[in-house]
């Protein structure tokens, strides 16, 4: 796997190659070279399966991190290919023509984070939510407690406690299991 990671570094300008475990590596790519790298991995290396695709919202950096997890099923190893895209103009290349299941992943990411994948079918088609008018809910600036207070009222008389302090208030320091 080290040769493949080295090849990614020379060909696509990847950085930050590290091994999380023996069978899991992680590598970072610039936004415009990420999908060509993933395509190259699929076509020219044993890493032919797309196991997972995910997005992390780094709101403090103003970026989304998109991660593709490609797997070599016969050699039993995986690479996490990470890239960062801009949060304001969130758009990323699509891998839907490489793997059919990516259509579902991209549809859900579009709905939940608001990232556009031009060329992917089912962009804008709602997958999980119905009649949703607010901002994409998995973004970190979407406040779910405020939304619930407006739309899903509770029964009156409900009390809230923060468990981090409540245990100490009720039982003293002995209330915590470990110190």
């Amino acid at each position, binding site marked *: 796997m080290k040769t493949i990671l080295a090849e990614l570094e020379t060909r696509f300008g990847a950085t930050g190659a590290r091994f*999380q*475990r023996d069978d899991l590596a*992680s590598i970072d790519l610039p936004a415009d070279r990420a999908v060509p790298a993933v395509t190259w991995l699929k076509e020219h290396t044993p890493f032919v399966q797309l*196991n997972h695709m*995910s997005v992390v919202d780094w709101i403090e950096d103003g970026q989304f991190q998109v991660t593709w997890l490609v797997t070599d099923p016969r050699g*039993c190893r995986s690479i996490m290919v990470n890239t960062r895209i801009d949060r304001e103009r969130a758009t990323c290349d699509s891998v839907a023509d490489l793997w059919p299941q990516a259509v*579902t992943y991209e549809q859900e990411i579009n709905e939940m984070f608001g990232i556009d994948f031009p060329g992917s079918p089912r962009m804008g088609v709602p997958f999980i939510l*119905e009649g949703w008018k607010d901002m994409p809910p998995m973004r*970190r600036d979407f406040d*779910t407690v405020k939304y619930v207070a407006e739309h899903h009222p509770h029964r009156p008389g409900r009390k809230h406690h923060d468990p981090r302090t409540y245990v100490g208030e009720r039982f003293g320091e002995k209330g915590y299991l470990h110190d």
Partner: protein
Amino acid sequence: MTRRITESREVQLWFGPQHPGITGNMAMQVFLEGDTITRGKTHVGYLHRAFEKLMERRTFIQSFPIVCRICVPEPDTNEYLLAAAVEEIAGIEIPEKAKWIRTLVLEMSRLASMLMVLGGQAGTMGNGVPPQWMIALRDYILDRFEELTGGRVYHMYIVYGGVRRDLPPGFAERMEENLRRIEEYLPYVDDVIFDNAVFRKRTIGVGVVPEEWVDEMGLSGPIVRAMGIPRDTRKDWPYLAYPELDFDVALAEGSDIYARALVRRKEIQQSIDLIRQILAKMPQDGPYCAKLPNMMTWKVPPGQTYVRAEATRGEMGYFVVTDGSDRIRRVHVRGPSYIHGVSLLERMLPGTNIADLSALMVSLQVCPPEIER
């Protein structure tokens, strides 16, 4: 409206969320010409609880009760994966006995889930006897879970560092008694399900998944093993105590509904044997949980990982990202039904008979809570 509907060639049928043949709470929008489905679309979202958003607001230990409830028949795999991912990032080693107890709990929950699914497979054919048997047999395992963890269905037993409590004394004997009772019923199950002419006629050759789709779509679990390909996450990506256990991957030929049911039947026997092996080989003393700092204020260094385990349905994975605070930054649950229930099912539908649809869905073991979390 589509042209075919206005020309009255096609009928649109909503196989909706309330239907006795549906697994869980999802809808299939199918278009029929006569009895044959021309195409279909999966609609999910009826069970969306926004787990991942909720987990961003919970501390590390508060995530366990939430994460259990992602998959109802088999909650322990989810707990294990969350614990394993965070332990890997934080660099915590769990004691030997905890590893074995975790394996035991995972195998018990696999057994309970397999029993239910095999019963459900017969139930979709109209055979009402095996579901009653299997759910009753599953109750034996749930009794053992209740003795071990306090809850029948949701256990919250696996925590960071190990497990919550030790095995109670005499557990192995009671477990053996239950396994013996389950094994008594399995020959009857074989007669009623696998030797049944109706079941055979309705399932052999039906719902065939071609081999090329495995790598193209990332399939896993009994769907792949029913093609004769020996892929099992417990053997390929070993975790917990599985390297020290001796078992064969359950295989079948034909890649149709019958072959998948056969794989599940073999895996029931495999789980029973594994539980016996685990109870025999488990170390009797040792700590069951590593000492961890105060769970309410524990901070984990930044990191990113993906852990996988073999759930009943296939390979389940958790993608976890932490950022050094006292909450998990991002948990993304990759359930096997995400691919099997949406991409694979929609691709297999054209040409299927409407009468086989619910058998096909149970055979692919589509679990809607995993798709939309």
